[in-house]
């Protein structure tokens, strides 16, 4: 036990023990887990690889002789005699039924009564993350190379570098080097514990950072201490923040989770603190990734979701990064059909790449194929309905491809869109003037759609408005780059009419899988699939965006 605390800049050691009785974070973290997870966690701790950092409280004959006054029978959880015994015990518990409390008490008051190490705490936290994959909200950032700085040696000023768009360097990182550099970036009055772990099912490396606002790296600062009971922080004890950074394999992106307060701690000021912590991370990570003569920066990619699978698809190592939504037919995994040595005419002709043609072809075929013979008995009304349903399904297939399936397991929970288009009156009149029954019909439908959107917005105005305002403010804080590039975007300059009224419309889509919901609406004919703007299919791959001229402004589709 270290009795003297000296401020250091070192990181918190993984072996640092936290006393469960004085550190609320321990029991809080452990009690979040299910009984099965707790048991497998305990067995993980007892496995030979982890044992050095997770030593349990064992029966010790020498200590027994010293403290002979204490009777072993009084002990509710008598210490085990060997690791193998403990392993058997927890394996037995796995087969029997019982309460979670029983296992939790056994861990906290029995086998690890002398304390749980930071490493164990990290493992427990990660176990929770695997059990509840959507418990964290991740934002994707892209690592971009910076131009070599032009500053001279005497100039000590730190100049914000310019993104080198012409660079051919694909950033990569090495975990231990990265960690060493990151530690150097962390301020000396903040202590952190780092733990790397490979995600069990996804190609991800997860770094858990446990941050403590204290210059000391002893367990005193965690307000534990065997019997001393001196509260290090005075803030109610042991509440550190936890941030996860996920590094997807073979791709220049980083996913950053929203910091969460671990343990009890004061509730006040968490919001501001966690935001500044995140900013600290966004600033520190690129510096940790950088090397001499090769500097990087992080740029937000406007994708926030709880679903790691979705992140890996849209910002991962695969082919879907620049081809989401309907374009995913080009990125799909079914490569067999695109072999040029196969001269069988593809049906539907995917190789033609023209979705409209494919749609027309399929529709025509269905109209006069075997189906027709079978449907002859039905009334013309049902037949028409069926054909309309079929057509809408095909339309949805054309617009969404194989993405946005409700049971696909990948989706975003929230999409915020700000529409900056001028009031559509002018476009409507233009269409009417152009004449033709088609234009007339389309215009009316468009009207209805817009009204619907307006109602949707109006109904939930109070809550949504507030969040959106916060989000947009967030955006401006975080992400001046996006706004700049949007302003410079030559493609966005099409509208330009300053005199026209631009109502400020903000749309928020909520749900377990937003784009699958929109797809279902298309399939049921509530949204006209042909006139639906592209951003509603999710092909831009963003969850926060401003729409101008019907397209997400500033975002260059593929992110280039």
């Amino acid at each position: 036990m270290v009795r003297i605390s000296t401020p250091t800049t070192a990181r918190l050691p993984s072996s640092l023990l936290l006393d469960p009785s004085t550190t609320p974070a321990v029991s809080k973290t452990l009690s979040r887990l299910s009984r099965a997870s707790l048991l497998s966690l305990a067995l993980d701790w007892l496995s030979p690889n982890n044992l050095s950092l997770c030593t349990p409280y064992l029966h010790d004959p020498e200590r027994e002789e010293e403290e002979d006054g204490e009777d072993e029978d009084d002990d509710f959880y008598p210490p085990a005699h060997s690791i193998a015994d403990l392993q058997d015990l927890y394996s037995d518990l796995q087969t029997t039924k019982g309460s979670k409390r029983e296992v939790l008490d056994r861990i906290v008051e029995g086998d690890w009564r002398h304390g749980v190490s930071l490493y164990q705490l990290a493992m427990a936290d990660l176990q929770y993350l695997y059990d509840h994959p959507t418990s964290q909200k991740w934002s994707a950032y892209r690592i971009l190379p910076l131009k070599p700085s032009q500053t001279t040696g005497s100039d000590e000023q730190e100049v914000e570098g310019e993104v080198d768009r012409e660079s051919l360097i694909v950033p990569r990182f090495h975990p231990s080097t990265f960690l060493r550099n990151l530690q150097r970036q962390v301020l000396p009055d903040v202590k952190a514990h780092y733990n790397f772990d490979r995600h069990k099912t996804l190609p991800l490396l997860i770094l858990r950072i446990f941050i403590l606002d204290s210059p000391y790296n002893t367990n005193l600062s965690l307000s534990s201490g065997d019997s001393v009971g001196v509260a290090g922080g005075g803030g109610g004890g042991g509440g550190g923040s936890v941030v996860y950074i996920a590094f997807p394999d073979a791709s220049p992106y980083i996913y950053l989770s929203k910091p969460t307060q671990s343990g009890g701690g004061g509730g006040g000021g968490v919001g501001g603190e966690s935001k500044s912590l995140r900013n600290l991370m966004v600033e520190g990570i690129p510096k940790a990734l950088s090397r001499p003569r090769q500097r990087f920066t992080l740029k937000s990619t406007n994708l926030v979701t709880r679903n790691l699978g979705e992140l890996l698809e849209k910002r991962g190592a695969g082919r879907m990064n620049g081809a989401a939504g309907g374009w995913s037919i080009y990125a799909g995994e079914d490569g067999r059909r695109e072999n040029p040595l196969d001269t069988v005419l593809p049906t539907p002709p995917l190789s033609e790449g023209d979705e409209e043609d494919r749609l027309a072809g399929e529709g025509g075929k269905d109209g006069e194929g075997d189906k027709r013979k079978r449907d002859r008995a039905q009334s013309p009304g049902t037949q028409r309905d069926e054909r309309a349903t079929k057509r809408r399904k095909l339309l949805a297939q054309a617009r969404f491809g194989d993405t946005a399936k409700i049971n696909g397991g990948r989706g975003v929970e929230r999409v915020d869109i700000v529409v900056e288009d001028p009031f559509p009156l002018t476009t409507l009149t233009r269409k009417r003037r152009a004449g033709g029954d088609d234009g007339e019909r389309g215009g009316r439908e468009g009207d209805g759609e817009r009204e619907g959107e307006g109602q949707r917005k109006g109904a939930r105005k109070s809550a949504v408005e507030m969040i959106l305002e916060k989000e947009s403010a967030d955006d401006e804080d975080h992400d001046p780059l996006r706004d700049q590039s949007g302003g410079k975007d030559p493609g966005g300059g099409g509208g330009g009419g300053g005199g026209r009224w631009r109502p400020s419309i903000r749309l928020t889509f909520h749900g377990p899988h937003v784009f699958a919901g929109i797809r279902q609406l298309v399939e049921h004919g509530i949204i006209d699939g042909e006139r639906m703007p592209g951003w509603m299919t999710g092909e831009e791959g963003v969850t926060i965006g401003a729409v101008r001229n019907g397209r997400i402004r500033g975002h260059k589709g593929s992110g280039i």
Partner: protein
Amino acid sequence: MASDPSISISSGSSDSGLTEDRKRAERLNTVRENEQSSDTLVSSVLSIDDEMEKLNERANAEQVSTLQKQLRIQVSTLIASYTTGRAESRTGGTGLAQLIEEDNDPLLRQNLATQLAAQNAHNQQCLYRTCAGVTSFRVQDPDPNAVDGGRVLGIRIEAVRRAKFLRPYYVLLNRPYPNSQSLRVHRHTIPPGIPLSGLAARCLPPPQPDQPAKQDLVKFVRSLRREIVRHHHRLYAVSYLRKAANLNRRAAEMAGDDERLVDIYLGSADAEAKHVEIEYADGRTGRLVMGDDGELTKVVVVSDTAGRDREAVRELLGNAVRVEDVSSRLINAVRDKNSPERAVLF
């Protein structure tokens, strides 16, 4: 590992050079289909039709789908072989075109004509794709608000590995700039390990108001394809290296060598497929870095206790300058050690 110099951009739908390529396609098809005469094919198609009727009644879906697949193959073969006849019809023979004209049923005639046209277009496309590494095509953007009326230029880059066509890579370009013909990458399926954005910024810069745009699509596609081919070659070199290391390990296990090489694999965080991790049985780890074209840049082996192990590096490399040299060296080492009783390995 240098990229293939023969590269050309050809449009799959253009009419230029059509007759030449049709002749080539015909030759290809004749070679492929000459074992079966078209008459037997017609009869077999008919018999399949009959069988399908029967099976439909029994609702045996699985067999139906197999037969349908078979039917599709037969139909395309048939049409392709009739295409041959069609060319002959110009010189007096009989072909499908003539057959179409002779047929009285207008629906059937129309169907056959569209099918024939589609099959011809597809054959031509396949031919171009087989012979040229890069082909282009046109796409209609389904987004009603798309720029430039939704016109999109698609570029298809073929990837080949071990004499097999892989799924091609696509780059889709549009023209978003007002009053300018300049292109911009709209969508793509290039993995992040290939520096597409850098290449696009170099070869397809956005137009500046004061100076004319200097975009070079051919250079862009050529350098992009070069990067893709290199990437695949590097991946292949690493997998070959790994195979060699496995062979080496098995031989060393038999010999009871404690300092044997355990595994060589690609670094998981490396998008470019340039960093290779090396593991030894006694806990030493190493790393091999190669350049763009597979030349060795850096190799280092480190052990926890003794620091850098230069001896191991020398043993691994010899006088190799490329990654393939390391693989063949590993295999040769096994061959040298290989006594007659261990010949079972090969």
